[in-house]
């Protein structure tokens, strides 16, 4: 019973990580850059949904829509203002540092607008939970929606990349920017689209994260963002199914470590497992090793 309880909670926590990791992995896979501001875009999505649902009193579905639009626009703006000039001009290190800068910028901007007081985010998900084994095991509506959303998004992204022209363009850009441009692909447009999709996903992740764990502060996105990044690396960064698998496993390991070993050591155990996996499989669980011919 205890085992089942931990497993369910682990999957639920893991699916939140997974949904964030999908955005990380996708942007990395295509633009070859680590968008450390991803966690903060999630937080902005949370605030957008909170403002439209609570302050403006919109319908939950509508407020999720508002959050997606806000984050998508934000993602495209960040890409064009902060990243694109650097991607063209200088090293990837500069872009990485800029991403950290954008992360702080977003945190402080929200701090300025909404203040540092935490807000209680009432769940936007109105689906009743499942009660198993005579009420001792409860699977909440948020858990179900998060897991389903995660699987749907993963499948949709995989299809989009493999089956559509835009997706093929993304793959081409990720393999070789120069060659893709020569073939007539609009590289900048493709990268902007990647950011738009990644940020839209971040909005959904933000709503689901805040619905499952109803606390909203300007720093809400920071730690889940880092854990999701770990999940993405764990599963093989750049791989969409890898991000999903990495996220779920990370959640399960974290909850089991807390439950069976120690609540204080759980983070140390999670990151310890990451190190071991990377020692054995440097590209992560599902990462592909790309051999480059000289």
């Amino acid at each position, binding site marked *: 019973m205890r085992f089942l309880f931990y497993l369910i909670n682990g999957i639920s926590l893991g699916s939140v990580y997974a949904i964030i990791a999908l955005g990380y992995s996708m942007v990395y896979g295509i633009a070859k850059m680590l968008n450390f501001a991803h966690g903060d875009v999630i937080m902005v999505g949370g605030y957008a949904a*909170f403002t439209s649902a609570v302050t403006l009193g919109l319908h939950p579905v509508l407020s999720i829509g508002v959050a997606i639009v806000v984050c998508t626009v934000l993602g495209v703006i960040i890409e064009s203002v902060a990243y694109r000039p650097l991607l063209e001009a200088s090293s990837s290190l500069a872009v990485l540092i800029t991403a950290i800068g954008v992360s702080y910028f977003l945190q402080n901007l929200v701090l300025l607008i909404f203040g540092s007081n935490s807000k209680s985010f009432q769940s936007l998900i109105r689906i009743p939970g499942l009660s198993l084994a005579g009420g001792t095991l409860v699977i909440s509506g948020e858990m179900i929606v998060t897991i389903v959303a995660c699987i749907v998004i993963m499948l949709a992204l995989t299809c989009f990349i493999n089956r559509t022209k835009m997706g093929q363009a993304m793959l081409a850009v990720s393999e070789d920017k120069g060659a893709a441009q020569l073939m007539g692909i609009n590289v900048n447009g493709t990268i902007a689209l990647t950011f738009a999709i990644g940020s839209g996903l971040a909005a959904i992740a933000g709503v689901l994260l805040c619905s499952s764990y109803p606390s909203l502060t300007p720093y809400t996105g920071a730690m889940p963002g880092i854990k999701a990044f770990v999940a993405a690396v764990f599963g093989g960064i750049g791989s969409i199914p890898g991000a999903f698998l990495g996220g779920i496993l990370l959640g399960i390991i974290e909850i089991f470590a807390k*439950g069976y070993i120690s609540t204080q050591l759980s983070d140390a155990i999670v990151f310890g497992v990451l190190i071991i996996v990377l020692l054995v499989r440097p590209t992560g669980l599902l990462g592909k090793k790309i051999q480059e011919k000289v």
Partner: protein
Amino acid sequence: MKNLRKVLCVTMAAAMTTALALPAAVFADDTFHIGMIGPITGAAAIYGSAVANAGQLAVDEINEAGGIAGFQVEYTAEDDEHDAEKSVNAYNSLKDKGMQMLLGTVTSAPCIAVEAEAAADNMFLLTPSGTAVECIQAGDNAFRVCFSDPAQGTAAAQYIGEHGLAEKVGVLYNSSDVYSTGVYATFRAEAENQPFEIVEDQSFTDDSNKDFSTQLLAFKDAGCELIFVPFYYDPAYLVLGQAADMGLETKWFGVDGMDGILSVENFDTSLAEDVMLLTPFSVSAEDELTQNFVAKYKEAYGEEPNQFAADAYDGVYIMKQAIEQAGVTPDMSYSEICDALKTAMTEIEFTGVTGTITWDASGEPTKAPMAVVIKNGAYELMD
């Protein structure tokens, strides 16, 4: 050009020397000068402005009633933005203006820095709300109005034991926070002497303060009747929500960090129904002192006073009582006043809005803790 710069330098230097040589005392000599330092702006502004306001309120009351032993009181508040360095600057600036006693500082980290200076100067320091143990440890010049962090743990254990609230107690604390671990450690030590047993203790860290399911399950399995939660209201409100989702039925007991849970935006306060917490002050207390203070504060500043305001209001009256006990006069230097007051502080018994308090030479207050329980979204005093 070069000459011009030289002339400018000399002029500046001359101006600075003159400024230094000017007599420091800006205040008149027949009044007591109380300085106050706290975060009046910035992220912790809610605490500092409460202390600044309530201190002013108390000083105005005293002056209206004829002052302390016939002398008027002047009260000057300086902002430190909850920054240790700015706090020390504010301290020096107040000292230059002739401060004789310090009400402050409001928050712990700046207070520790200022106390180091004040101890070296032998300046009387009374912190209304600096809860860290180190706030008053640098010298014998410093006293405290509120409970220290560890004292709250002891007080909470005694309260639970004496009132027979539970036999099986669980503790959840934040192992990455010095405040929370400090309270937990003393609670655990005092629990040995109390008629209840800690059957389960669980912790979390700032990095994993979202999911409490494993900890809550452990409490449920251990059959805890009461869970002691010595950490801030954020993330306490998350814990309460998840416990309700799990169907965990238990009593909750928090300390002063829980104060504020009712003002979390959009929080469903019914989740906090029946939560108990130790707090130095309750606006709903029915004694005349509290009623008078709450009414006057509301009239002057348009909001209900919080515990910081209450500590500061008492702080000024504590100074008054100690001054009267020691018989000091405003023409004495701050060092002489401090020497007289530190003896007087150990002799007085003060009764104010935060209870009846006595002090020993260490500067720590001794008083009965006040416990409130949340009923229908408001504090209600427990007996």
